[in-house]
């Protein structure tokens, strides 16, 4: 484990700052979950269900228990406390006692001397199953005669948003039906961690995760331990993108460690990783957009259905987002938007970068292009006539209170210089053709196209949740000057939080030397590293704690007497009206420490008409994609991406660019190559040989424009930038392919067959039936299903 990160630099907020974890990462010395090691270590392995839906008749452990090197073989009978867990609702068995609900669901766990012995022992557990009829289609799940997967049925949440006159008429209507596939986060670092039994009867867990405290809230009741006996320390995180929000090996490793009395490490291989984390929800979207002849939007009617898979995960929040964003970042006076999330026997889906917004964006942007064509308007011009701005009323009935520079976002994206026109085919390096040098063509059927998309997303948790972030800041005298220590449980997944927190501490206290503690449960919750929230929430907590520390320093100055004027800190000195009056280090005979929590402004839930102040604030983005399509072979090369990011304020511009470039790559992936292939609920492409993510040859240059329009009331005006590029990129790239080919392309990812006429667009089925639900809240809530995490209790 890395013992804290230390960096000496003078740079604060708003500058390009080198990552504080850059050096250990390039040297290979940064310890990820899969790198952990301990004396007397045992290795865990997991037996998983081969069926999407089956009843467990019998589990025979005898052969596994007798296998060489085996120390534990555990089933549901060995779970000492609560038998279930889950991110929002506790609907997922730690180990199942009755039925399995998806292929890959853990059934039993093993600890043995080596990984190989553990895997072999797991394969010697014999489970007798009675195979049941699975529900494998999200609309089929709504049928009255579909097998019921949970006591409360197959509907996880159905909500509607009713705004203005839902029956409003318009001069022009366009209608589209869209589908998006199941995407994998494909973080390179596998799910991994190590549990160590402690002398006090508790357990220490070191793990790659996204939110330490919510892991603990789910783990402790299962182990029958008070929360303070479950201490969690963050291991290095090899990317997350939402995939580590749900528990993976945490509880299993703790159970095995407590049973054997030895440290237990679990580290999944790539195939198991595909089975063990949630995915991006596949979606089906029906959308009608109505406008006046001049292009002014009048009404939107939409329905989105998403497949939540076997368990709830964070799906209720995802469908909340997808539904409230379905009309796009446009002023629409009349809207009727409905969203349905269902349970099926497919792998569970949950958080992935964008969290419901990419699916919505794919649909509303495709409809905007249809409308532009129908009206004979330029697609960018049509968008500019309708974009949201400060004070615009959203379909949820509330005005945007803060920054909403959507016009500037769109215009700056439009104005990025276009890439040069291609050279004549005969002059080109064959590597530059779609498909690269392996392409059998020589550029005969090449067509270029341009696509544009605008999107938006909430920053931080919505619908009444108080996802605060706590930080402790300590200022003391070090051997060579003042030193700031920052302690937060905020998770660095690679996005750059560690660097942001040190920048804020430097900025606030005017001290170079900042030490960031490893994130652990020694401080209170930092909330999740998700929802683009950590920059402003973590930055806010460190800023509050630093200001409390500064107040104490100022009190010490004033106690010495003789100082007047407005006090400040800079360059390791105390200033009065800008004039140095004391060296900071001379005031630090006793260290100064403060612990503060930052809360975002409160939000509300949705009322029975889907109205409410549900979102804290919004980040907007736009992308222009230029593609080249080989229309004979159905191959696509993305030539250039221009991405505009509404950052509020860029704390670290280089980091914003990194989020834009990497986020664009993931959106491009969903546009042209990434999809989990399900065959009867089984993932058929659970490897990097079969599940393709963009390589160096697939990614074009990305020109990033950062729009800075500070959000009022948040530290430095900074929004979050982690998700916005991904949201717009899929829509923009597919729009460009439509432009190049003239084909409708209503399903992402686009496949070669779609481009050469071998696969027709999915036929538009009738709008699915509206399920009967008690209200807009998640269905398990009405049935009294335990919450998975106490931090998510709605405050209103």
């Amino acid at each position, binding site marked *: 484990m890395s013992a804290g990160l230390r960096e000496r630099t003078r740079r604060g907020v708003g500058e390009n700052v*080198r990552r504080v974890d850059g050096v250990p990462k390039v040297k290979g010395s940064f310890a990820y979950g899969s790198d952990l090691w301990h004396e007397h270590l045992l290795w865990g392995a997991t037996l998983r269900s081969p069926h999407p839906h089956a009843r467990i008749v019998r589990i025979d452990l005898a052969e596994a228990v007798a296998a060489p090197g085996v120390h534990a073989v555990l089933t549901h009978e060995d779970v000492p406390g609560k038998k279930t867990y889950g991110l929002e609702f506790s609907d997922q068995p730690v180990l199942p006692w009755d039925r399995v609900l998806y292929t890959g669901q853990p059934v039993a766990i093993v600890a043995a001397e080596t990984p190989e012995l553990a895997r072999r022992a797991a394969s010697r557990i014999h489970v007798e199953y009675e195979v049941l009829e699975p529900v494998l289609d999200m609309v089929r799940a709504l049928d009255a005669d579909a097998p019921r997967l949970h006591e409360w049925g197959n509907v996880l949440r159905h909500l509607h948003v009713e705004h203005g006159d839902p029956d409003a008429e318009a001069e022009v209507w366009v209608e589209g039906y869209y589908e998006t596939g199941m995407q994998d986060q494909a973080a390179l*670092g596998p799910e991994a961690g190590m549990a160590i039994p402690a002398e006090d009867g508790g357990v220490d867990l070191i793990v790659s995760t996204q939110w330490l405290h919510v892991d603990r809230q789910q783990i402790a009741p299962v182990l029958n331990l008070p929360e303070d006996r479950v201490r969690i320390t963050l291991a290095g995180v090899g*990317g997350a993108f939402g995939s580590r929000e749900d528990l993976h090996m945490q509880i299993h490793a703790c159970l095995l460690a407590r049973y054997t009395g030895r440290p237990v490490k679990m580290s999944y291989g790539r195939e198991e990783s595909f089975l063990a984390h949630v995915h991006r929800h596949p979606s089906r979207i029906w959308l009608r957009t109505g406008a006046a002849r001049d292009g002014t939007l009048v009404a939107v009617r939409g329905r989105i259905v998403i497949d939540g898979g076997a368990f709830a995960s964070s799906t209720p929040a995802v469908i909340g987002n997808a539904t409230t964003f379905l009309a796009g970042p446009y002023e629409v006076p009349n809207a009727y938007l409905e969203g349905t999330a269902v349970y099926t026997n497919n792998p569970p889906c949950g958080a992935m970068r964008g969290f419901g917004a990419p699916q919505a964006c794919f649909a509303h942007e495709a409809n905007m292009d249809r409308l532009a064509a129908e009206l004979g308007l330029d697609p960018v011009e049509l968008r500019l006539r309708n974009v949201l701005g400060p004070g615009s009323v959203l379909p949820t009935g509330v005005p945007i209170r803060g920054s909403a520079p959507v016009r500037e976002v769109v215009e700056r994206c439009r104005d990025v210089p276009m890439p040069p026109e291609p050279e004549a085919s005969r002059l080109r390096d064959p590597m530059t053709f779609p498909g690269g040098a392996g392409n059998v063509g020589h550029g005969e059927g090449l067509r270029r196209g341009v696509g544009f998309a605008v999107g938006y997303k909430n920053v931080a948790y919505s619908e009444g949740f108080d996802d605060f972030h706590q930080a402790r800041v300590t200022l003391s005298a070090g051997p060579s000057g003042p030193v700031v220590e920052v302690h937060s449980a905020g998770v660095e997944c690679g996005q750059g939080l560690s660097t942001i927190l040190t920048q804020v501490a430097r900025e606030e206290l005017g001290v170079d030397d900042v030490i960031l503690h490893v994130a652990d449960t020694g401080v209170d919750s930092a909330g999740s590293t998700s929802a683009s929230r950590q920059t402003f929430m973590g930055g806010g907590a460190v800023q509050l704690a630093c200001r409390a520390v500064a107040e104490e320093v100022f009190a010490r100055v004033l106690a010495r007497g003789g100082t007047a004027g407005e006090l400040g800190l800079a360059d390791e000195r105390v200033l009065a009206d800008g004039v140095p009056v004391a060296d900071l280090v001379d005031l630090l005979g006793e260290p100064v420490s403060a612990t503060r929590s930052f809360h975002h402004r409160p939000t509300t839930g949705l009322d029975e008409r889907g109205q409410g102040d549900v979102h804290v604030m919004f980040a907007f983005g736009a992308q222009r994609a230029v593609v080249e399509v080989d229309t004979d072979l159905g191959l696509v090369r993305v030539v250039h991406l221009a991405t505009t990011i509404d950052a509020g304020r860029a704390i670290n511009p280089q980091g914003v660019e990194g989020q*834009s470039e990497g986020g664009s790559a993931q959106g491009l992936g969903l546009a042209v190559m990434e999809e989990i292939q399900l065959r009867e609920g089984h993932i058929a492409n659970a490897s990097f*040989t079969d599940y393709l993510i963009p390589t160096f040859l697939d990614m074009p240059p990305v020109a990033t424009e950062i729009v800075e329009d500070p959000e009022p009331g948040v530290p430095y005006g900074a929004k979050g930038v982690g998700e916005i590029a991904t949201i717009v990129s899929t829509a923009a790239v597919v729009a460009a392919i439509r432009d190049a080919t003239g084909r409708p392309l209503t399903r992402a990812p686009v496949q070669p067959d779609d481009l050469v006429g071998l696969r027709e667009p999915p036929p538009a089925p009738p709008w699915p039936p509206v399920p009967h639900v008690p209200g807009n809240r998640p269905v398990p809530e009405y049935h009294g299903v335990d919450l998975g995490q106490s931090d998510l209790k709605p405050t209103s």
Partner: protein
Amino acid sequence: MLIRVRVNGEWREADAWEGSSLLSFLRDELQLPGSKNACEQGECGSCSVWLEGELVCSCLVLAAQAHGRDVRTVEGLADGDRLHPVQQAFVDTGAVQCGFCTPGLVVAVADLLSRDPAPDELTVREALAGNLCRCTGYQKILDAVRLASDRLGEATP
């Protein structure tokens, strides 16, 4: 079986299962976890090392194949606290995010520049197409290769 390998200039030996890959041997037996285990089927390049000076995916090489031979890993690139120019360029350009692909990429870029000190963009993209990165979109990695190439060029006139 006992396997003996010269790793980063030092002879090391350990007992390993016959089926063990060089990657597992380095990580689990020699406690050299710098080479990463992201796909374990030769698709992602995270485990790249030099075997007798040749760039290989250590997940596709049996530990036994490396017996008696020379292996250089990412841990052998820096000279104490002095980073290899490729490592320094990755830090300077923001080419590192989660960092899981970084050791493999640093090794692959160092290998590329040792053969081709000033590669053009297409050459870089082709040479590194076997190294997957999920965070950066590759743009800042391309910047890092250019910067390292420039600095190495200045150092050896």
